[in-house]
C-alpha cells in the first residue's frame, strides 16, 4: 500500500516541478512583493506590515491555486490520457491510486509552501530585522495541514464532477467562502428566521473550518505564537476531515466505470 502510494506520489511531485505553474506563481508573488517593497511611503523605510500582509496573501492565493489545480487534474488526466489502464493492470488497486495521488499532491504543495515561506522569511527579516521562527513554523505547518484537507476535498470533487475546470472552480468558491464567512455562520444564523436558521447552523457545524489554519493576522501584527495545544487540536481536526474525504473518494471511485 505505502510502497505503491509513494510511487504514485513521486510521479505527481515530478509533474509539479516539470510544469511551469509553480514557477510562474512564485515569480509573480516575488515580483509583486518586491515591487510593493520598493514603494516609498512618507520616506519611512521601516514600514513592514503591509508588505508582510500582501506577501502572505499572495502566498495563500498561489498555494491554493497550486493545490487545487494540481489535484483537480490528476485523476481526470489519468483517465483522459488512458494512463490509468496500464497502471491499474499492475498490482495496484484504486485505493492505492487515490491515496498515492493524495500524498503526491499534498507533498508537492508542501514543497512549494516551503519555498514560498522561505521567501517570506527573507522579506520580513530584511524589513523588520527579526525572525520569529516559531510562529513562522506554526504558520507553515497549519497551512500545510489545511492543504491536506483541501487536496482530499478536491480529489473527491475530481471524480464527482466531469471537468477538472468546473471542479476547481467549485472547490475554489467553497474554500474561499469558508475562509471568509465560515467563522461567522453561527452568528449569522441566529439573526435569521427559523427554517433557514437551522440550515445555516447545520452548515456551520458540518463544514471544515479552514479559517483555523489561517494565522496570517498573527504574523502580520507580530503577535505571540499560537499555543501548541491549539495547533495539535487543529491538526487532529484536519486529519479527521481529510480521512473522511479520502474514504469518500475511494468509495465513489471504486464503483466508477473507467471506460465511460
Amino acid at each position, binding site marked *: 500500500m505505502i510502497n505503491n502510494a509513494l510511487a504514485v506520489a513521486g510521479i505527481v511531485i515530478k509533474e509539479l516541478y516539470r510544469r511551469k505553474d509553480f514557477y510562474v506563481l512564485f515569480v509573480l508573488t516575488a515580483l509583486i512583493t518586491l515591487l510593493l517593497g520598493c514603494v516609498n511611503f512618507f520616506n519611512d523605510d521601516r514600514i513592514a506590515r503591509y508588505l508582510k500582509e500582501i506577501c502572505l496573501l499572495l502566498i495563500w492565493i498561489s498555494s491554493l491555486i497550486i493545490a487545487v489545480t494540481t489535484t483537480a487534474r490528476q485523476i481526470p488526466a489519468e483517465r483522459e490520457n488512458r*494512463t490509468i489502464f496500464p497502471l491499474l493492470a*499492475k498490482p495496484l488497486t484504486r485505493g492505492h491510486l487515490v491515496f498515492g495521488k493524495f500524498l503526491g499532491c499534498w507533498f508537492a504543495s508542501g514543497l512549494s509552501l516551503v519555498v514560498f515561506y522561505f521567501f517570506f522569511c527573507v522579506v520580513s527579516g530584511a524589513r523588520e530585522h527579526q525572525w520569529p521562527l516559531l510562529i513562522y513554523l506554526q504558520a507553515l505547518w497549519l497551512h500545510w495541514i489545511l492543504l491536506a484537507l483541501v487536496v482530499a476535498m478536491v480529489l473527491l470533487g475530481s471524480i464527482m464532477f466531469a471537468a477538472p475546470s468546473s471542479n476547481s472552480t467549485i472547490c475554489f468558491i467553497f474554500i474561499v467562502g469558508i475562509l471568509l464567512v465560515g467563522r461567522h455562520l453561527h452568528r449569522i444564523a441566529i439573526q435569521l428566521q427559523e427554517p433557514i436558521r437551522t440550515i445555516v447552523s447545520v452548515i456551520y457545524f458540518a463544514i471544515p473550518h479552514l479559517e483555523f489554519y489561517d494565522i496570517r493576522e498573527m504574523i502580520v501584527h507580530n503577535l505571540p505564537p499560537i499555543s501548541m495545544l491549539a495547533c495539535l487540536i487543529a491538526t487532529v481536526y484536519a486529519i479527521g476531515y481529510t480521512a473522511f474525504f479520502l474514504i469518500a473518494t475511494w468509495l465513489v471511485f471504486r464503483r466508477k466505470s*473507467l471506460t465511460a
Partner: protein
Amino acid sequence: MPDLVKIEKLRVEYRSRESQNGFKVAVDGLDLTVGSGEVFGFLGPNGAGKTTTMNVLLGFVSPSSGSASLFGVDVREPIARQRIGYLPELTYYYKFLSAEELLRFYGKIFRIPKGELEKRIDSILKLVELEHARKRLIKTYSKGMQQRAGIAQALINNPDLLILDEPTSGLDPIGRMKVREIIQRLKEEGKTVFFSSHELGEVETVCDRVAILYQGKLQVEGRVDDLVKNYKTNLEQIFLKVIGYQSSQAV
C-alpha cells in the same frame, strides 16, 4: 496444459442512448481459453469487441453475465496482476517523464529490487530500441516510439502472461518485425501471449491458435494450421469469409 485465460459465456453491455433498448451488446456469449505457453491471436474487425474482452480480463469493465479468470483466479480479484504484462491500445504515457523514469515507476510498483530493476530497464530499452531516447521526455516521442515505450512497460515485470492490444499498430516494418521477434522469443521462454491484431500475415506466422470475433460473437476458433487445412486457404481469406465479406472480384 492448464488454462491461463478462461472466459465463459461472457456478455458485456454498454449503456447507449442510440439503440432502442438503452444498451449495446459489445461481447455476446464468448467462450475462450488460452493455455499456458500458447501464443493466441485475437482477431476481428473494428468494433468487434476485442478491446472490451481484454478490459474484462483486466478488471476495467465488469461483465453483465458470464465469468473470466486469469491463472484460475476470477478477474475481479486483483491478485493475479503481479504476473501480467498489459499493453493497452491508444495509450499515451505520462508526458513529463522519460522512458527510463516511466519504467522505473512501474518497476517500483512491482517491488523489483533496485539493482535488478536498472539492469532490466537497460535490457528492455535495448530490446525495443529506445536506448538513444531513454532520457528524453515521452512527449517528444513519435507515435511509434510511444508504442515501443508501451511494449517496454508491458515487459518490465518479466510477466508470465502478456495481454497486448494491437502491439504493432503505428510501428514501421522493422518495428513490426521486432515485435514479432519479441513474441517469438517470449514463446520460447515459455510465456503465454494473448494479443489482438489486424495484421493477419503476422498473426499467421507467430500464433499457435486464433479466434475471430465478429459483432461480439465468436465465429471461428482453432489452431492456425488446422484452420488453414480445413478452409484450404490463407488466414486472410478465412477472416473475410467468416465476417461475410464478398470481394467484388469474387462476385
